[in-house]
């Protein structure tokens, strides 16, 4: 947990290097220590394997004018030392997950990453993760996309490449991790929750003593492993916003969000910055719609700035960001992830709100894939599932008044099989408690939305219609929803 050390006048953060055994955690720290001209302290080892941790202490960089002291700690990777690993992870401000890129190590990476997610899940503010794909020089190294998909397809990951043995990518990974940690510090700072105390653990020796002291106890004494002994706490004032003063610009394509977005203007604070980092790595085409909205697209991401998202006063802009962030928080479980909102400075006294959403497979995409396969029975079953999800989404999102409009191309599916909204969140979003709803009209949905979709897909194979309808009727009847099949048949065939 980060803190402000009043005696040294510095910010103290803990960067944890995690990952399965032999992934390269200790090698990273060894290389980093050499590169940063710091000393490496290793708690205890056995046959070259870390039993407790490795520790590097480094002072560098600045946060709000104060030096940053990084306690860089690697955890033991052996499964039998899982408890020690968890204890250390719970004290982190950012985690570098070192993954072994060799294909035969993939399952170990996946298992270890899953545990990491479980440990970090309850932490507030969230702890950022940088995944370092190490050993990129070895034969059989899997692609980054394959690694990303294996670790967590639905979660956004900041990914770097490295050959820790030679030092390649080590420092870059570390600096990215520090940036994420600082986002967390900023969040604590803004909430006035950054402790102003001296660190209880000041070096590797003290950490080793503290960890040994907790061994054999039923409950780990986390505060003894944390950065700060709980002593004096005093509130930290959030930094005042900068005072600009100039007229707004006119016309032109606005600058897209990028890594230069100032601190405190991205939501969610840690994952959002990763979203910005990832989404701006690829070229995006940008266009202005008739509505006045700006839209940007790439193969993986979509960006939108609503017409009303332009501001000429920072406080008003911040208030809009906070309000929109609250809306997102309230309905998070209904939204596809990852996504973020960003307040980007455009010129002096001009700020623009952006929304960045990762493209995910929608019901439209699923329907198209279904029509590519030749089994009409499977097609009918698949179509029923899609229709059912679409109808559920309409009932849950539109009829309740939460969203105004939906379509097959803006609904995706969660892992649990529930519908998710995958489009751009409405800017003047309504809360879930909004009263005033649209009438749920199933027939209209089928007639005006589903039937045209089916007609479009089936026009190249009209001979499939009877078989598809038969299959759909069978599935719908089995689910006591026979009227759906009837509606579709009427819409398609007029009878």
């Amino acid at each position, binding site marked *: 947990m980060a803190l402000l050390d009043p005696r040294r006048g510095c910010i103290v953060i803990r960067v944890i290097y995690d990952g399965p055994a032999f992934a390269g955690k200790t090698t990273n720290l060894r290389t980093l220590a050499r*590169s940063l001209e710091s000393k490496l302290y290793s708690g205890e080892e056995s046959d070259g394997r870390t039993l407790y941790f490795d520790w590097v202490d480094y*002072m*560098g*960089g*600045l*946060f709000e*004018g104060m*030096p*940053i002291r990084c306690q860089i700690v690697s955890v033991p990777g052996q499964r039998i030392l899982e408890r020690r690993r968890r204890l250390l992870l719970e004290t982190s401000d950012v985690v570098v997950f070192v993954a072994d890129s060799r294909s035969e190590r993939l399952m170990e990476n996946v298992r270890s990453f899953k545990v990491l997610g479980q440990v970090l899940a309850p932490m507030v503010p969230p702890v950022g993760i940088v995944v370092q794909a190490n050993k990129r020089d070895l034969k059989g190294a899997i692609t980054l996309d394959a690694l990303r998909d294996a670790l967590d397809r639905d979660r956004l990951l900041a990914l770097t490449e490295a050959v820790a043995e*030679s*030092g*390649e*990518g*080590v*420092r*870059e990974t*570390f*600096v990215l991790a*520090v*940036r994420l940690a*600082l986002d967390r510090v900023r969040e604590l700072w803004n909430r006035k929750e950054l402790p102003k105390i001296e660190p209880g653990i000041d070096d590797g020796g003290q950490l080793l003593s503290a960890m040994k002291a907790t061994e054999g106890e039923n409950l780990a004494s986390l505060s003894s492993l944390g950065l700060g002994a709980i002593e004096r706490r005093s509130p930290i004032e959030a930094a005042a916003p*900068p005072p*600009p*003063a*100039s*007229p707004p*610009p006119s016309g032109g394509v606005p600058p897209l969000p*990028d*890594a*230069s977005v100032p*601190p405190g203007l991205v939501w969610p604070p840690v994952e959002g910055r990763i979203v910005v980092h990832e989404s701006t790595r690829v070229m995006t085409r940008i266009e202005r719609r008739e509505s006045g909205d700006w839209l940007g697209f790439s193969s993986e991401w979509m960006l939108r700035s609503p017409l009303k998202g332009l501001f000429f006063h920072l406080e008003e802009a911040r208030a809009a960001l906070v309000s929109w962030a609250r809306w997102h928080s309230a309905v998070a479980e209904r939204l596809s992830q990852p996504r973020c909102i960003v307040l980007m*400075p455009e*010129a*002096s*006294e001009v700020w623009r709100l952006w929304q960045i959403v990762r493209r995910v497979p929608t019901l439209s995409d699923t329907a198209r894939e279904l029509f590519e396969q030749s089994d009409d029975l499977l097609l009918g079953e698949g179509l029923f599932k899609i229709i059912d999800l679409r109808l559920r989404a309409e009932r849950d999102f539109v009829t309740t008044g939460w969203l105004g409009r939906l379509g097959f191309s803006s609904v995706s599916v969660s892992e649990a099989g529930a519908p998710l909204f995958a489009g751009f969140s409405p800017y003047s979003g309504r809360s879930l408690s909004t009263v005033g709803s649209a009438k749920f009209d199933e027939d209209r949905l089928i007639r005006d939305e589903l039937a045209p979709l089916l007609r479009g897909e089936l026009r190249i194979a009209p001979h499939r219609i009877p078989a598809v309808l038969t299959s759909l009727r069978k599935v719908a009847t089995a689910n006591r929803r026979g009227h759906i099949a009837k509606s579709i048949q009427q819409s398609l065939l007029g009878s």
Partner: protein
Amino acid sequence: MASEKEMIAAFEGIQRDVPGFIAASLVDIDSGMTLAVLSSRTDFDLAAASAFNSEIVKQKMKTIKALGLQSKLEDILLTLSDQLHLIKMVGDTSFLYLAAEKASTNLAIIRSSAARHINSLN
């Protein structure tokens, strides 16, 4: 972005070009952390200098915005009594920081060497 190894090789090229070379670093603007360093003097605290220079860059960027300029910061040249310092933007998120003895070189040499070696990495 170029790797640390490539950056250090570029710094070594600058060191060969610039008489009186003291130190060079690639610095992350947001955190002030160094991404690559090369120093010929142990008494020159490059990490601290890099961090404080990141504050200079941030303030300069704020100044540009406050003036309503549409320009982008390219570099900052600083003349001290016995040293010359160059801060050259590398992308949107980092900068090169270069220090040299004033008596041995001049701003033109520093600037052209930095441009040549850093631009060749892009």
